[in-house]
């Protein structure tokens, strides 16, 4: 029977000592993976796994990774929404693990949205 060991939890608790954990509520960037039936069937879970890996490697404590349901744009799945504090949320569409890794580096960590994967940036016309 594979079960979590109390010693392992104690060990990581010890390693947390002295670091400030912002994950309790306050955050700088929130990344939401859309997990409706449509998203899941299109590969949303792979995005979550890829983002989790990036988050773990980065060691950042001011980034929240979470999930939500279907956003009603099923043909664009899998999608994520990146919300940085004090700037408009950006929805990224038709993603894969490589694309989200780039979004993590450039937008989530770097603060610069990746226009080519976004649902719409600069697509508004004024005619």
């Amino acid at each position, binding site marked *: *029977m*594979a*079960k*979590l060991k*109390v010693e*392992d*939890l*104690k060990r*990581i*608790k010890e*390693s*947390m000592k002295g670091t400030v*954990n912002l*994950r*309790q509520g306050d955050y700088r960037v929130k990344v939401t*993976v859309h*997990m*409706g*039936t*449509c998203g*899941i*069937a299109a590969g949303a*879970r792979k995005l*979550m*796994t890829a983002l*989790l890996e990036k*988050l*773990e490697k980065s060691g950042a404590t001011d980034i929240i*990774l*979470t*999930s*939500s*349901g*279907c*956003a*009603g744009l*099923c043909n664009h799945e899998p999608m994520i929404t990146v919300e940085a504090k004090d700037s408009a949320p950006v929805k990224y569409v038709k993603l894969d693990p490589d694309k989200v890794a780039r979004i993590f580096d450039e937008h989530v960590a770097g603060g610069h949205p990746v226009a080519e994967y976004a649902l719409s940036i600069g697509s508004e016309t004024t005619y």
Partner: protein
Amino acid sequence: MQDLSLHILDIAENGIRAGATLIEIDISEDIGKDTLQICIKDNGHGMDAEMLRRATDPFVTTRTTRRVGMGLPLLKQAAEETGGDLLITSELGKGTRVVATFRKSHIDRRPLGDMGATLTTLIMGNPDLDFRYASNLHEKEVEVDTRSIRKELNGVMTINNPAVIALIRDLFNKGED
């Protein structure tokens, strides 16, 4: 859906949308009867008899973002393709229980897939909810209960901390299914 773990993720999300605070997932097999059974139970607000009757109709959904709901119909199809079935019981105010039974050796029975990814995705996305997972399979037995992990962490760190998630993932990494 490529494998059963993706179905489980999807059905568990239903429970979360139904306001559940605890989702219980049990996977078991009976070698003698050649069955693989998945049970997903939530303590959300449940369905009335009319909604329950229509739950596996793909053109019925509670959400407003789209007009079709494929989650339960797809799981029903996956189970029935193997000669199994899908059983849903629900009570208003108490929750819903979905039991999918598969003929384990049937050629159309999809593999269980990556349950570690499903469970960690659920916990990451819903750190305030509790999940209990138990698989009782010939190849592997895994047990995870976020209530006891939470108690052990004692507020020092949250359950969606990448280090905790990595520990949970490792329980599955020795290869399930």
